[in-house]
């Protein structure tokens, strides 16, 4: 037999195995979830920690029999933080019949908003996209599911108010922001609050990629001399901000970072916990491994004779966010299956399921959110975690801030 023919046979055999395998899978009761990730692009420092958390939670669910008897298959596609691959990923998900999909990246979320609506598949965008998507009437198929930048901004101000003794009258707050749409998004909220609370706010824009901000930090510490700094930065820049502010002698406990400036990786890159001691971070999912669900995942790994996932150790902030997203997805599917009396739900059923999530806290990892048709953000809950003695420590419980004012702004833009 010629080598060519031999290879052909091997390929044919492999193809047959694959075909048989997928046929066997299809016969089971199965739901498909689509997940876009960024394990290789410019923000891969997030994807490599977040996505394993997602897969681990789904694996845990499947090991316990799935969701209401349905096994879940996750189809993950790496979009490299580029728009064309994200579009391709969405079309692939549609072809595979996903009931929902996890989006990744703000431009990608924007680019898919219309497609999701046309195809009637919901997409979750925690920490991405626009705050306006909170309004479920205007954006029926986009779910921020976590606090938007508006809610984070309001949360930061509420936290500062508490830290500064209950009043912001005459105080000065510096807003150190990434000079892109995401960085500018909370500005209307800050302007409104500055008026009603009576503090002075000044913006310090850092151009992308934000690894050079000596001038801005000098301006803050030397001239403006604020009582508090809010940092809304991405990628490598949060660590630079921590280092620069520390270098100029600004007290770390007077700095608060938004959700993408809040992971262990940022603190490590800034020079470790000793440097960042006192730094406050806003979180939309619980931090650390002291949650029942994380312990269950670790028990599952132990039962399989494998070590605990390293991502959990090195960045529990991002890993837990992956678990958080997976848990919300699974809960939406569970609600949908229950509503259909155990039958297989469509993507529209799952959207209705998502809009009835309530009182699902996963032992404190998930905030006490309530997603409704009007509010796809679930209430805009945040938690502040502070760097203390070599780890991130919870600083108060889940809270919502200035909700009425945010609703007013939502009504104005939509």
């Amino acid at each position: 037999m010629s080598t060519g023919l031999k290879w052909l046979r091997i390929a044919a055999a492999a193809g047959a195995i694959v075909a048989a395998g997928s046929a066997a899978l299809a016969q089971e009761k199965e739901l498909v979830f689509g997940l876009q990730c960024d394990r290789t692009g410019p923000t891969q420092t997030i994807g490599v920690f977040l996505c394993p958390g997602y897969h681990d939670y789904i694996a845990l669910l499947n090991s316990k029999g799935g969701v209401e008897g349905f096994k879940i298959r996750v189809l993950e596609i790496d979009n490299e933080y580029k728009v064309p691959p994200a579009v391709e990923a969405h079309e692939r998900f549609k072809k595979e019949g996903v009931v929902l999909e996890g989006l990744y990246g703000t431009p990608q979320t924007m680019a898919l908003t219309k497609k999701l609506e046309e195809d009637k598949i919901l997409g979750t965008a925690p920490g991405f996209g626009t705050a306006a998507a909170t309004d479920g009437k205007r954006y029926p198929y986009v779910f921020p599911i976590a606090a938007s930048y508006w809610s984070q901004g309001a949360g930061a101000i509420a936290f500062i108010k508490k830290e500064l003794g209950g009043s912001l009258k005459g105080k000065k707050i510096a807003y150190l922001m990434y000079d892109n749409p995401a960085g500018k998004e909370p500005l209307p909220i800050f302007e409104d609050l500055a008026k009603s609370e009576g503090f002075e706010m000044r913006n310090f824009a850092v151009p992308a990629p934000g690894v050079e901000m000596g001038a801005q930090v000098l301006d803050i510490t030397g001239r403006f001399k604020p009582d508090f700094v809010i940092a809304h930065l991405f990628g490598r820049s949060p660590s630079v901000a921590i280092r620069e502010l520390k270098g100029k002698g600004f007290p770390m406990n007077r700095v608060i970072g938004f959700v993408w400036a809040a992971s262990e990786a940022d603190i490590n890159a800034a020079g470790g916990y000793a440097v960042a001691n006192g730094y406050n971070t806003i979180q939309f999912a619980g931090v650390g491994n002291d949650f029942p669900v994380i312990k269950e995942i670790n028990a599952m790994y132990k039962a399989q004779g494998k070590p605990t996932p390293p991502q959990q150790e090195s960045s529990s902030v991002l890993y837990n966010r992956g678990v958080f997203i997976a848990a919300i997805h699974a809960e939406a599917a569970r609600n949908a299956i229950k509503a259909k009396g155990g039958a297989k739900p469509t993507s529209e059923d799952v959207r209705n399921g998502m809009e009835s999530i309530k009182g699902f806290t996963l032992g404190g990892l998930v905030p006490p959110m309530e997603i409704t048709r009007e509010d796809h953000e679930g209430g805009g809950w945040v938690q502040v975690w502070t760097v203390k003695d070599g780890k991130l420590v919870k600083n108060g419980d889940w809270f919502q801030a200035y909700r009425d004012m945010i609703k007013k702004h939502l009504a104005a833009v939509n």
Partner: protein
Amino acid sequence: MLHRESGVFKTSYAADMALYPLPVARWTVAAFALLFAVILPLSLHDYYLSIINLSLIAVVGALGLNILVGYTGQISVGHAAFMSVGAYTAANLAVRFDLPFWITLPAGGLMAAFVGAIVGIPSLRIKGLYLAIATLAGQLIIEWVINHTPAISGGAQASIEVPRPALGDHQIKTQGQLYFFLLFFAALSIVATLNLVRSRIGRAFVAIRDQDIAAEIIGINIYRYKLLAFAISSFYAGVCGVLYTYYLGIANYEQFQIGVSIDYLAMIIIGGLGSVLGSILGAVFVTMLPIVIRLVMEPLAGLFLSAGELSSVVASTRLVLFGALIIFFLVVEPEGLNRLWRNIRNYFRTWPFSY
């Protein structure tokens, strides 16, 4: 395209410049037209059409960049910014004035051409790497202006939602309908480029690329033609941006950042500088190859790995394979896929009776 005579028998310039050197070439084009206009849309699933759609948009952009870089020899790292100019022009016209796509599309192209000609002004004085830096500055300035001008960008989010293009009362919405919409403009730009490069303007471009002083001596107004090259190239980029906007239903400047400019440069270098077919091959190669690699890898790796491990391995390996294949093709033929194709074709020109 596929067939060639067994030697060079041309006796007139007209024969040399003909788009269809042989009757059989006409049939090949007809066969391609049939394939793309009838067979593919009828036989392919929406998903595969969506991949072709992305490639069609990329083809328009790559053709434009190749006119500038490949034919005229002026390097530009600001191609994505010109796309965003087209995208925002069309989006603003479509939303504020409710204009249909057959007005917004050329308007977006013209606005991009205007801005492109301005960014191209430094090319009158500087060349090569220096020009690359000047156009890079153009890219960053345009990004900054869009980001900081709410009148253009439509607010803090710098994105404008655009209604679907419509033909009469019929909205172009599904992947299949969008396929014909994009195919029309991609085909139009291919034919336009083929004709441009064999015209007086195209030949002037090539003369400037090969030796600008010599070009000036034989009577080509270099300044005019350099700016014209920037304008035409940016027109294509603008149209490409408008097509993106209609395809996605939104104009968002973060889709047109510096990385995209680099991607398009990669397309024309891999495809072949200074060739129409090369632009097409390069655009298709860069858009489709990562997808094809993943589609092949997924079932194979799925035999050994769990879902979580699979995604991590596939994502990283795909990137390595993609890079390796680019290096492989460029080492085999530094002049790109177009040259590779020509080598193959030339081999078969006299086959099996070569010598």
